[in-house]
């Protein structure tokens, strides 16, 4: 496939779904989607108890991007993300114990209670760092990719960021250097059309992100961020392009943010956007959408229910453990500032 092929492809229109994932993988992917969704639904329920004292940027509606891209990545990929990182953390680690303990500020948390929701990481599982400052991990990923080139490693880097990050100078600086050096760096833009509450039309002086990125010497491919199979297929496509012609990849996925920017609530009554119709919501909800597709493919209702039940049990066990765990001791305050 020529690197230009993606130019002729409009978002989400490629017929890739039927064989995007093997059926053996389908339930594993479904489980990851459900894990991310139910973990965040649990946060929404628990948050009002005021025990999770950390700002949460929930990604309900965005799960397919983290789950799908990570499904398509080679095992040893180094991944970087943003403050809206729950699905990414769970897709890479499956670890709800460290996840919830971190949200509750406990010593058993992924960052010993020093990271909270906005800076979750699991370097040992590939999630090197996430950041609460928009655009900030993009160049760090480029640096990891530079290190791989230096070390003659074909390891991949994937950096997730939102559409707002494209307005930061560091995005263009990073894209420029990654393209110049032809680094194995996959940039994943999760585009919900909003920067907090400001729509793209009020922020961006260009017609489209992908058309603006395209003149750089990288592979640009778009997909439907609400459709996990399309995300997987799109990811594989860009990886194939990167293998054929070594350059960075730029993946663009649109999705719908169902909740407020930060916090556990909906905010459709705030007046800056309208509530989707039930039909739209079904199309924009990656969990519902994949579930329906699995049903159409003859996956038994009992199999889906078993996944849900297993996830629920895992989450309630983790939440219980997190609530019972110890807070960091006073000695932890000064620990790990320096190596």
């Amino acid at each position, binding site marked *: 496939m020529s690197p230009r092929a993606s130019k002729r492809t409009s978002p989400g229109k490629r017929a890739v779904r039927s064989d995007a994932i093997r059926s053996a993988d389908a339930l594993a992917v479904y489980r990851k989607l459900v894990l991310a969704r139910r973990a965040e639904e649990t946060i929404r329920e628990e948050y009002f108890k005021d025990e999770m004292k950390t700002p949460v940027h929930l990604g309900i509606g965005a799960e397919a991007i983290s789950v799908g891209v990570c499904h398509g990545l080679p095992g040893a990929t*180094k991944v970087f993300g943003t403050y809206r990182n729950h699905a990414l953390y769970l897709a890479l680690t499956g670890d709800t114990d460290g996840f919830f303990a971190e949200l509750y500020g406990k010593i058993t*948390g*992924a*960052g*010993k*209670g*020093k*990271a909270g929701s906005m*800076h979750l*990481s699991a*370097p*040992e599982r590939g999630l*090197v*760092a996430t*950041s609460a*400052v928009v655009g*900030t*991990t*993009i*160049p*760090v*990923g*480029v*640096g*990891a*990719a*530079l*290190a*791989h080139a*230096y*070390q003659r490693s074909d390891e991949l*880097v994937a950096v997730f960021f939102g559409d707002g990050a494209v307005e930061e*100078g*560091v995005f263009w*600086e*990073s894209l*420029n*250097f990654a393209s*110049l050096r032809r680094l194995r760096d996959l940039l994943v833009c999760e585009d919900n059309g909003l920067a907090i509450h400001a729509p793209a039309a009020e922020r961006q002086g260009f017609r489209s992100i992908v058309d603006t990125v395209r003149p750089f010497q990288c592979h640009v491919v778009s997909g439907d961020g609400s459709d996990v199979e399309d995300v997987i297929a799109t990811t594989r496509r860009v990886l194939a392009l990167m293998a054929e012609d070594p350059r960075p990849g730029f993946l663009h996925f649109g999705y719908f943010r169902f909740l407020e920017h930060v916090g556990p609530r909906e905010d459709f009554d705030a007046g800056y956007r309208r509530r989707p119709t039930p039909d739209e919501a079904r199309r924009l909800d990656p969990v519902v959408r994949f579930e329906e597709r699995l049903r159409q493919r003859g996956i038994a209702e009992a199999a889906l229910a078993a996944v849900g039940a297993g996830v629920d049990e895992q989450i309630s066990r983790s939440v219980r453990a997190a609530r019972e765990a110890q807070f960091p001791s006073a000695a932890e305050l000064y*620990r*790990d*500032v*320096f*190596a």
Partner: protein
Amino acid sequence: MKSLITFREALALALAKEMEADPTVFVFGLDVADHKRIFGSTQGLVEKFGGERCFGTPLSEDAMTGVALGAALSGLRPVHVHIRADFLLLAMNQIVNMISNVRYMSGGKLRVPLVVRAIIGRGWGQSAQHSKSLHSVFAHFPGLKVVLPTRPQDAYGLLRSAIRDDNPVIFLEHRWLYDITGEVDDEDVPPLGAAEVRRPGDAVTVLCTSWMNVEALMAAEVLARRGVELEIVDVRTVSPLDEDRIVASVRKTRNCVVADYDWGFCGFGAELAALVGHSCFGVLARPVERLGFAHVPCPTSRPLENLFYLSALDIIRTVERMLGLDPADLSGATFYSYEQRFKGPF
């Protein structure tokens, strides 16, 4: 082996030694591989180690600092070089929001072995955007080490230590020090965090950073002629700070002048004065004196520049005042000898 070399040669030697010893060390930044080689401080590296280990970058300080972090997190030891510390202000997000924090936020899982080298201070007519020191700014943030070498030996030894350190180190080199020649022992690689007494004395302790050591040594010679012996302490690393050596010196002399190469207001000098004031409260013969730049943007015009910066004369007059001595007649003395030698252009 000992050799008599300049500060700039000492920097280049330290880089070459570390690059030789450790293949994960690389040097990058604007101009590091051009014909001028950051005033000669990266001389010979690209020839010896190739363009992969010593390379220039796009003008993207912010992203390139993030690149340094990403490389450091991936098993390399980057040395990122800036020809002026003022340009680091473009990289503050990476330095302050990421580099200083990521280890802590990871619960101690990550290490960040990276060095940021930057040139500070006076050249001639450098004005407001090519002259800042910034050490107090960087030292303010937990998680960063901050080093200001003065002698060629420090440039060599402390840079090697900084590269070997598993933590981020901001390494700030005064432009005028580049031409200073001194003996360098290539075995002498001191740990970060140790101050050093440059000249022993019993009358007044002068706590100095960077170029102020040179001014203080000139002041000490003048004052010694009237029997006043300054003890000059080169702080060397702002973070971690060698509080013990500083306090021990002031306990001995009972007098302290803080001569920081920076603005006084809200600066590192205030930190030193507070440390001494608190730890030597019952011992001090009189209040701690603080010297810092005029609290204005650095001007270009030579006469204004001379007023802006501190000199040996400021130290002499301060010490005389502290000790109740009449001001010595220094009408024939010249204290800007180096500045008169410096012919730029940069």
